[in-house]
């Protein structure tokens, strides 16, 4: 009888944990491509809006779809800081755009906005080149 009692209590605790909503944990992607881009001077944004230089990034749309691989407003945190030519080092970025619709890069690639297409910014983006990065998303 005692064994039955403790078994029922344990089962109750186990079952009640099923009904407890769990927080959605952040997801990490390893060894993904990262590149840099500049935007046209016509409304692409400068240091603040809509794309903030060295802060906002573009991601792929999902394959065979127009929806983004991660939604607008998602925060990205790289495992190691990225050295961004013309800025310095940082590891947090916000998704504000989509790109590379031909999927030339890895699935979870992202493209760091380096500002409007001035000669300096374009050179900095070119010097940044292509890198591999591990990062976590908060969406």
């Amino acid at each position, binding site marked *: *009888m005692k064994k*039955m*009692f403790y078994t*029922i*209590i344990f089962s*109750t605790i186990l*079952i*009640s944990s099923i*009904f407890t*909503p769990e*927080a*959605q*944990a*952040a997801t990490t992607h390893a060894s993904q491509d990262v590149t840099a*881009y500049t*935007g046209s001077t016509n*409304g*692409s*944004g400068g240091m*603040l*809006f*809509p*794309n*903030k230089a060295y802060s906002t990034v*573009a991601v792929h*749309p999902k394959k065979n779809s*127009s*929806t*983004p691989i991660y*939604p*607008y*407003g*998602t*925060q990205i*945190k790289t495992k190691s*800081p990225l050295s961004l030519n013309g800025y*310095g*080092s*940082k*590891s*947090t970025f*916000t998704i504000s*755009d*989509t*790109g590379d*619709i031909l999927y030339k890069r890895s699935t979870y690639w992202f493209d760091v906005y380096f500002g409007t297409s001035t000669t300096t910014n374009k050179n900095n983006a070119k010097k940044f080149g292509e890198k591999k990065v591990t990062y976590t998303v*908060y*969406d």
Partner: protein
Amino acid sequence: MKKFYLLLFIILCLLLSSCNSQTNSSQDLPSNLTLNQAINLAYSDALDWNKKAKLIDATSIDSDEEQTGGDGKRRYWNITFGVPDTNDLFLVNIHDAKINEHAEFPNEGEVRTENYFVKDLSDIKYDSPELLEKAKEITELYPGDVFAKGYNFGLTTDPEKNLVLIKIVGWDEERKNMKYVLFNGENGELYDEFEREQYQ
């Protein structure tokens, strides 16, 4: 045997009442928040991280399946805080009016002086619902259908002008260009507006 069935009955009642209270809780509390509601919810968490924490920026996250934001509210938010004259950051991620998770980012980027922060949350006098309506009066603003669906909202500062800026994000009628309408968060005046073709 009778005691066993009685015990089982009591346990089942407890389980059912637990499920009901969670359901009732989710029905009573709003799952969508305005910009300011999200910021205030996140701020209490940020103060637990550091008593000197101040707001840097906020953005809605378009994780919804459908278009939302028509009432100035969203389910998902990322709110970022920091400490002036340091480069430590604290991110609060909100889902359905609750803090889903938070993360500390020490030594992140440049050291930020006071002008990169919102000095006091009471400086933010306007919120996303009324500014969305104001944005629609200023320009034709449509909800996004694929990327940045519905209407999205955000807050940041202009460190050079010491301004709190609230942004309302929508699209043009053809859904080819994203449209941004920025307001001074302290006096509600239009700061800037522009369109941007989505980067391909």
